[in-house]
């Protein structure tokens, strides 16, 4: 993960040239992903044509299902909400050089913790207090879980990619063990779940929409974390460590603390996504928490090049693809895996496009002089 290293600015002859150069450089970060999206759309069109299906119809349906109307937008944004937070779970550690793929586990256990801590407080704590406690519990649990992967990495040299994945499987087993055992609500007959927090305690939606507060919170978290990672000493130290841990250590940076802190922030984000699943959708912890948001978040973060702010539009794009998937299935008779395949096309092409950064002369305007 060296994507974060910043290029030293080339010596600029004048202020005006400097500005236009900077704009050119900045535009690289928009132009290349857009180009990649167009290329993946073209490749997918070729794929559909080869199957004798109409790409025009396909992309028309994608547009209508994902972005074509107010309803479609709500559909898209609702699906994007958990993805913002789970993508942040990947993006933050990536800055310090950790590849965490265990956001799913932190989400599941975060949601579980939120639902469990609520049970003794039902009817005691008023809804806002209850929700705040639940959110904190979820974040703490998530932070603990991914923090563990960070700590193992630092203290025992255990590879965090693999350990966070293993921790996900273990998290799911832990959740099922309790939800179907000691902490099961006996009334939850055929879908084992914890005691529901009740409609009166559920977190509402953003006024005038069906979109729950998870999206707004996720967006706020993305902005905050963007500031943290790019404008503070902490973020700077984390980036140095991510670029070259040995140099960071030589400079006396607290590499271990930074590593674990980044992992914990990441886990807190995923845990919070679990809280929103419980507080806005399910009302309790149950098997539906294992929905793969954590895994989709990995894709989102990589496509956003681990930039917290960029996570938001990419999550919306993925939400839109998922939202339109059903329509494509119903109208064109294509299998549900079409969405997965399109995601795969986009992901592969976008990653391949990484190689273009810094190699297209136009964006390097000043370098030519």
């Amino acid at each position, binding site marked *: 993960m060296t994507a974060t290293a910043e290029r030293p600015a080339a010596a600029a002859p004048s202020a005006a040239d400097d500005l236009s150069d900077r704009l050119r450089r900045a535009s690289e970060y928009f132009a290349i992903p857009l180009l990649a999206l167009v290329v993946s759309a073209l490749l997918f069109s070729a794929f559909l044509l080869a199957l004798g299906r109409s790409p025009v119809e396909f992309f028309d349906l994608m547009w209508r299902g994902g972005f074509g109307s107010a*309803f479609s937008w709500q559909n898209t944004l609702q699906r994007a909400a958990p993805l913002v937070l789970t993508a942040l779970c990947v993006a933050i550690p990536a800055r310090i050089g950790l590849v965490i793929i265990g956001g799913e586990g932190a989400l599941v256990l975060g949601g579980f913790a939120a639902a469990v801590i609520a049970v003794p407080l039902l009817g005691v704590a008023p809804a806002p207090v209850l929700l705040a406690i639940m959110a904190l519990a979820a974040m703490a649990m998530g932070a603990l879980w991914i923090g563990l992967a960070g700590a193992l990495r630092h203290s025992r040299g255990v590879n965090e990619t693999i350990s966070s994945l293993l921790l996900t499987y273990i998290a799911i087993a832990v959740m099922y063990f309790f939800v179907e055992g000691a902490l099961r609500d*006996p009334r939850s007959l055929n*879908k*084992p779940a914890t005691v529901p927090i009740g409609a009166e305690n559920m977190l509402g939606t953003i006024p005038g929409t069906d979109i729950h507060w998870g999206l707004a919170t996720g967006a706020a978290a993305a902005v905050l974390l963007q500031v943290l990672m790019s404008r503070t000493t902490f973020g700077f130290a984390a980036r140095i460590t991510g670029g070259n841990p040995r140099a960071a250590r030589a400079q006396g940076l607290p590499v271990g603390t930074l590593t674990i802190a980044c992992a914990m922030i990441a886990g807190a984000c995923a845990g919070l996504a679990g809280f929103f699943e419980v507080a806005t959708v399910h009302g309790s912890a149950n098997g*539906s928490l294992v*929905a793969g948001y954590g895994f989709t978040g990995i894709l989102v973060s990589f496509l956003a090049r681990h930039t917290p702010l960029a996570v938001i539009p990419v999550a919306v794009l993925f939400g839109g693809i*998922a939202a339109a998937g059903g329509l494509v299935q119903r109208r*064109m008779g294509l299998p549900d895996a079409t969405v997965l395949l399109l995601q795969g096309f986009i992901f592969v092409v976008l990653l391949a496009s990484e190689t273009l950064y810094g190699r297209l002369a136009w964006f390097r305007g000043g370098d030519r002089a």
Partner: protein
Amino acid sequence: MTDNLISRRTLLQGTAAAGALAATGPLGGLNAQAPLTVGILYVGPRDDFGYSQAHAVGAAELKKVPGVKVVEEENVPETIAVQRSMESMINLDGAKLIIATSFGYFDPHMLAMAAKYPKVEFRHAVGLWDKDKHPQNAGSYFGYLDQAHYVNGIAAGLVTKSKKIGFVAAKPIPSVLRNINAVLLGARKNAPDATVQVVFTGDWSVPVREAEATNALIGSGCDIVTCHVDSPKVVIETAERRGVMTLGHNASQASLAPKGFITGAEYKWSTIYKGFADNLAKNQKLPNWVRGGYDLDFVQNTAYGAAATDGARRAADAAIAEIKKGAPIFAGTIKDNKGNVVIPATLDNYAPPLEGMNYLVEGVVGSTT
């Protein structure tokens, strides 16, 4: 899936949307110009040899009704995706009836949508609807598969030599426990010393573990294996290869076990769906609460396979005739396998206490925790 068909289907869609707007009456009524759109959601693939396939087979009957158009989505997870897909079917396809086939679709997803779209009818495939608590445009329908599993047990009791029947089950939830207990009670009718050995896999679709569970059961001496998982294909095929007899579940698996198949418990959703179609054709409001078993032709046993002896066939046929007349399955005083009395006196096949079954009856080897 030829091009021709697709374009015709697309054409139909246009008229459906226009028709839905003009429709009136409880469900819009039916006429040649305005086909009534029914949206169906499945939790798994439609061709899984199991739960979703059983529904899809029934839905195929619905498609045959003139003036009814069916739109389907498969692999819809029990998350916010359920609500969005329903809403998409309503808003973009003009669906006036939504059929939600998975248990976890009901609360909160279908309830939320039923409240939001009072002019659309919603029906859910498990008996969870309560007229005092839930919206009037929602409802439940269900087939009581334990009746067919009981018949499975009757046949099994007459063909087993080891007197041990293996049961691969997903989770210890009431609907699963009820089927396990029904098999045991059926088997003990003719083989009082028969036992049913249960292995829980912990999830609805884990093929490798299901195969391992089947092997483990055969290893411990079972000469008949049956299951309650989403897709029984792996269990039935594995048992057939090991030369062990099998009982089916959900849909027909007879073709998978030409040598060892005895019979199977099958849903017959087509009866219910055709009933719905009848109501629609006559412009009547759909019933909110439909449930039944053999008495209403909502369940059936798969045509006997090679392993069903003449005696087993006769006994099973007789049992079916009796159940149709209302003969109780949970008859007399019944103890659980820990020795506690769980059913003090005979219960009717539709008695509410059976819905909350959380025990395995005496003779079943296994534990619900």
